């Protein structure tokens, strides 16, 4: 996909300070970040570099201590609880390291959680078909493998046809083979639906999938690299 169209996100000078007990943790120390429509970005960095914090702020799960985040024409920094909920409901899809499926709901029902509240979703069956789980519709999470669970999570995230897909270590809990299948599903969605995608990882091997690779360390952006040629997920190894 081309990266030339209007930016989806414009974030400037983001800082985030947590107070954990008696100590203050500076998770972000002035980060600038842009994301264009349809772009696939990988955020690389070691644990504690601020990747997840940045992702949570972009997804409206958290608010920065200072700085600004603009999504399209929404100022997320000024948004209240209700506006953020609406923003998440209408525009963002999340994929988490530990899938965060609802264990008491089947694959189809987990996806239905989203399709029931979104404005113009696909059907759960359609979404699960996109991640090649059309034959596992009525399985509970406990009856699925880790990779399958993560694909259900992806189906759940894309079923609303979001503009952005935010993935926090989507393969972090998976082995190589399964991880590749999940990443393949993500690139497939990015390509076919044109969903701007941000993937967090500390696994540098995944960087090859991205249009752009941003490295974070100690709450700061340390480098930005553009991939001239993206690799296929199926050719990855780590």
């Amino acid at each position, binding site marked *: 996909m081309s990266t030339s169209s209007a930016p989806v996100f414009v974030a400037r000078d983001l800082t985030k300070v947590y107070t954990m007990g008696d100590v203050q943790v500076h998770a972000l120390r002035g980060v600038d970040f842009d994301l264009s429509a349809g772009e696939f970005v990988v955020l690389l960095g070691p644990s504690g570099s601020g990747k997840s*914090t940045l992702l*949570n702020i972009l*997804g409206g*799960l*958290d608010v920065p201590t200072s700085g600004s985040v603009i999504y399209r024409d929404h100022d997320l920094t000024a948004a209240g*609880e*209700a506006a953020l*909920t*609406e923003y*998440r*409901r*209408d525009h*963002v899809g*999340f994929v*988490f390291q*530990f899938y*965060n*499926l*609802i*264990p*008491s*709901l089947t694959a189809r*029902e*987990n996806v*239905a*959680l*989203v*399709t*029931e*509240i*979104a404005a113009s*979703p*696909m*059907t759960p069956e359609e979404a699960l078909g996109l991640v090649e789980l059309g034959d596992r519709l009525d399985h509970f999470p406990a009856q699925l493998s880790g990779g399958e669970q993560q694909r259900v999570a992806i189906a*759940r995230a894309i079923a*609303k046809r979001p503009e952005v897909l935010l993935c926090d270590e989507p393969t972090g809990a998976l082995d190589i083979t399964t991880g590749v299948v999940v990443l393949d599903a993500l690139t497939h969605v990015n390509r076919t639906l044109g969903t701007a995608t941000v993937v967090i990882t500390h696994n540098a091997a995944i960087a090859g999938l991205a249009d752009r690779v941003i490295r974070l360390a100690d709450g700061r952006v340390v480098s930005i690299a553009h991939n001239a040629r993206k690799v296929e997920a199926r050719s990855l190894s780590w």
Partner: protein
Amino acid sequence: MVRPPFRLRALTRKLLRDVWEMKSQALAIAVVVAAGVTMFVTYLSNFDSLVRTLSQYYERQQFADVFAGATRAPAPLAARIGAIPGVVTVDTRVVADVTLDVTGLDEPANARLISLPAAGAPALNRVLLRRGAWPDPSRPDDVVASEVFCEAHGFGPGDRVAAVLNGRRRELTIVGVGISPEYVYSIRPGDLFPDNRRFGVFWMQRAALAAAFDMEGGFNDVSLQLAAGASSDDVVARLDRLLEPYGGRGAYTRALQVSAWTLENELTQLRMFGLVTPAIFLSVAAFILHIALTRALALQRGQIAALKALGYGNGALAWHYVQWALVIAAAGALAGIAGGAWLGARMAELYNVFFRFPMLDYRVSTGVALWSLAGSLSVAAAGALAAVRRAVSVPPADAMRPDAPARYRLSLVERLGVARRLPQAARMVLRTLERQPVRALLSMLGIAAAGAVLVIGLSFIDVMDVLIDEQFVQAMRQDVTVTFVGPRSADAVQAAARLPGVIAVEPQRIVPVRLRAGAHHRTLAITGLMPDASLQRVVARSGAVVTLPPAGLVLSKVLGEVLGVAAGGTVRVEVLEGARPVFDVPVAALVDDSMGVQAYMARDALHALLHEGRTVSSTALMVDPAAIDRLSLTLKALPAVAGVAVREATLRNFRQTMAEHMNLIIAFNVGFAAIIAFGVVYNAARVSLSERSRELASLRVLGFTRDEIGRILLGELAVLTVLSLPVGAVLGYGLGRFIMTIFNNEVYRLPFAITAQSIAWSWLTVVSAAALSSVAVRRRLDGLDLVAVLKSRE
């Protein structure tokens, strides 16, 4: 939206499956709710049913609005009474109290004879004939007898009872069995408690009754029906003036008519009980719901975060989780309504022991059912809300991270250095309890609530024992009380002393009066006793024996409240017999007594007030137990005797009737308290198990045995249960006292009492319920899947 219309929403499915997942806990909570609702429905539906039954009965049988007795009034006075403004109907009767000689009963019984008009039904207070026939005009000894009396003796139409009418012994023939709105609660005048074997109401033809009591062309009892909106006070005053020359004994309204007044007090109490007890149960249910949900929501932390990330708002999630509580409460409430419908019908049957209606039409009222549902749902929502709000308001990014490890520290006991050598398990138990002191406290209070409910239930037995001791051991120490037909001269005392087996005699003077203070008044009797009486004594609820002062009145405290007078005040005494003098008499003291509204005076002071000699109305006798049968036989035949009360018989009857009534109530209480105890302990244990399964599984992997980890988990509960025992006893004592205070009314004011034995029983029940739930949890603990627990991420 793209989903088939018949499908449940995903969140609704999650709700149902999650509740199913915690089904045993949900069941424990629902059962507590059900217990509360059962009581609510039982008591309040009975209240509604009684109110409905009564009002229909009163209306259909033309229950009068105003009543009055007199010595003898001429028949034409009825027309003048009818002319009082506001009076719609006048019904005059002849009423007489007589003694009965009932085959199979050693001591004499009493009957109230009430006249029936020569033709047709009475205008007011109509008798409902249940069996047999009305008296035949050609047979003057035909009577209709009250149903409770017939039941107590197994009498029916055709049976005969001997009665002494104005000194003449007559054989009365029961031709019919009837009931009357006037005697729903049928009690011998002056008695504290109904005794259906020894008191009956007989309706007989007016001509026959009038002839026996010289009442031809006259009457000694009148009932009135008033127009809607008529001032009953005004009518009572005018009626009193009309009856005064004829020995009027003071008119009173329906509200003070013995049967109606007792029922009214019973109804008030029923409603109170129906509101207070369920409130205790529902608060406990709310509390365990709170604990259970707090834990369940902690387990759903990650799911809450995910749902928020998907775009579910705080409101939607809060509603989702509050619905958990609502589902559980609704299930409990529905079970409770069904339980109440069943139990209520059983309780309605019990009312037949004390009260007699044409039929008690027991129905669960829609209002009661809806209120109980609404009450349970709101209480459950209240219990859930705090837990839900806390869980849902966590920012999603925080919820995404696992909870920080719980902070532990050395427990107080250890810090004090008292217990350095405590076993490892004991130390873990102490540290856990101390880490969550609020929850430990709440769990302990929940178990204590069960103990408290038990203490209250069991205290009823002790209260009855105290009451029996007070009435039959402290106050009424005579073996037999003999009441004369009208006042007698002092010779009667000597005559009584000569009766077979009599060891000691105490004369009593009973004077019907109306006491008036300002706008308040009550019609009752002043009892004149010897100040140093050793048989019939005045005893306060505290057990203190009151020595009557040489002058002035001693009133029941509640009577003082009704009249608005305190010790040192003055009441106007309108004597309702003889020359009907009126005096202002100082109130010497109020006594906080248990039964009815009483007025006492030293006998000599009463004689002096009335300017009379040593007149006597009744005597208290101490009797040689071996001679009691002979005495009874003699008394049966004495025409001057209007009534005989034998203490042993009264006490036996009291115990028996009380036992029938109380056993069921106590069984309810004990059963429901056990449910609470089980519910609280089981829930607390399940929550601990869920929180600590990882830790316990780790210990198992390290080589701890099932017994050892069982001791850690259940040790915590054992500590809480033991701590709850004294707290429950204190709580029960306080609540019991409070309940007794609000239940106290003019009919009786029970002293609150609880014995060590009852406390011990309550403790035993709580400990057993706790042990039972421990066994249930222990079985779960044994089934702990070590590998799965350790692999799971919490």
